[in-house]
């Protein structure tokens, strides 16, 4: 029986790849072929859909906008989460456990609940339809996650490291930047990966908080799906392109993925 266990992950991976294959193969088909017949692979191979995306600013700007707000969000979330996670992993203070749980509750908040109030709040302070608005909104669920992951990694670093550094005459900021951050760099990588992931895949808030100037690619896609009839090939090409940044990021963190998903505390 042992000999055939590899079949289970293999079958699972095939199941995962089938819809992705269908999307990619459809992106290389002409509209006629998609609607006219059922073909397992593109018979009249075309790059037309991709040409449309790379030449039409409403399309390619969507990708640029998404990447901008995802980057702002990742940097912001990890930067403020670092000292907080350090405090949670090293010190006891009044209300620490309640604060930690309260932070986590924000990870649970349904985006649908916050969509309308966010729209009003950000319109009121004048940052509606900017990259900053989406980046800020996404910190609501990314900061708690980053704190949670980093706290796990930091708790794995023995306290003797801090104490030795103080004896050696390091000031706190110097110790934190020069010694502590390099020590938990893999944790920072994993936290950044998760912030990137959840900001990249979210649509509801990103769509509600933008109109034209900062419109994410996902919103451009849903608009195309509903307005200009049914351009499946174009939609499939746009979808295929959204998979690529994720695939690149996974490749870079592949060795940390398993540990990162356990939030560093197995």
């Amino acid at each position, binding site marked *: 029986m042992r000999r055939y266990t590899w079949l289970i992950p293999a079958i699972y991976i095939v199941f995962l790849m089938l819809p992705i294959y269908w999307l990619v193969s459809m992106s290389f088909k002409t509209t006629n072929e998609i609607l006219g017949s059922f073909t397992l692979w593109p018979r009249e191979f075309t790059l037309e859909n991709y040409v449309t995306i790379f030449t039409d600013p409403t399309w390619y700007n969507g990708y640029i906008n998404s990447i901008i707000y995802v980057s702002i969000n990742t940097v912001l979330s990890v930067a403020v989460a670092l000292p907080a996670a350090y405090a949670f992993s090293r010190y006891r203070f009044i209300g620490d456990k309640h604060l930690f749980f309260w932070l986590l509750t*924000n990870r649970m908040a349904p985006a649908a609940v916050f969509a309308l109030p966010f729209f009003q709040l950000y319109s009121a302070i004048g940052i509606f339809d900017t990259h900053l608005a989406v980046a800020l909104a996404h910190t609501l669920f990314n900061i708690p996650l980053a704190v949670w992951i980093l706290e796990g990694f930091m708790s794995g670093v023995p306290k003797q490291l801090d104490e030795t550094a103080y004896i050696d005459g390091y000031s706190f900021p110097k110790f934190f930047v020069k010694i502590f951050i390099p020590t938990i760099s893999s944790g920072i990588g994993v936290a950044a990966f998760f912030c990137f992931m959840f900001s*990249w895949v979210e649509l509801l808030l990103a769509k509600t908080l933008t109109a034209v100037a900062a419109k994410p690619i996902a919103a451009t896609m849903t608009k195309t799906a509903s307005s200009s009839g049914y351009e499946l090939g174009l939609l499939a090409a746009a979808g295929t392109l959204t*998979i690529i940044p994720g695939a690149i990021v996974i490749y870079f963190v592949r060795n940390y993925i398993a540990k990162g998903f356990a939030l560093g505390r197995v």
Partner: protein
Amino acid sequence: MNKTVNQKAWLFVLPVLILVAFNAIVPLMTVVNYSVQETFGNNVFFWSGLIWFEDVLTSERFHASLGRQLFFTFSILAIEIPLGIVIALAMPRKGIWVSVCLVLMAMPLLIPWNVVGSMWNIFALPDIGLLGKTLNTLGFDYNYTRQPSDAWFTLILMDVWHWTSLVVLLAYAGLVSIPDAYYQAAKIDGASSWAVFRYIQLPKMKRVLTIAILLRFMDSFNIYTEPSVLTGGGPGNSTTLLSIDLVKIALGQFDLGPAAAMSLVYFLIILLASWVFYTLMTRDEEN
């Protein structure tokens, strides 16, 4: 780790506190505000007490959405958790195939949610989609835009496709942390593979599985984009989950009061369930 008491630690937490409070408390108070007021337009509001909450808690529409939501959440948990464990157990532990498996399995997690919806929409179309066409050729009368049962089948299959990998990766992280000595001891004792699973692997995976269940519970309760792109809540209202219903009321009909009351009830349900999980989890850690 024994922590020292230090009230200055609050200073470290302050930036997070300010950002999250700005993002969480102001909008949440807006929602609370709407939930106790009535408006007839023109930005004029009247105190209305708790009528919206009574409305929500007694409305059949809410009960129906909540029922569908619970059915959805428990179905996907019942499928994804055992399936994830089985796949994690069968995965290779060493060599190049580990990386290959992990990278390929993590793929669905990084696809934007609306693209997941569109992808399954295209994949399941009865006449030109691979899944729909195959099922129809095999003799099933499959059409997810017309038959509620087919819509549910597609929705659950999509979620299994999308999120089982998260459970696999978590369970796998738990498994690789078990020292080889445990297995050798089990071998000397002549333990069956079931006994190894029940008394070594499962207890070691308990922590990560709690995280998996917690995350999958919260996220499946919040699910909005994928079903709204795939089925739009239809056919009829058959796949209208809580978030979809809420967005219909809040952004579609602009019924702010009822939508706000529903939001709060909805949030409280998630909060309560997660608090129970969280307490159980941390209590076990302390023991």
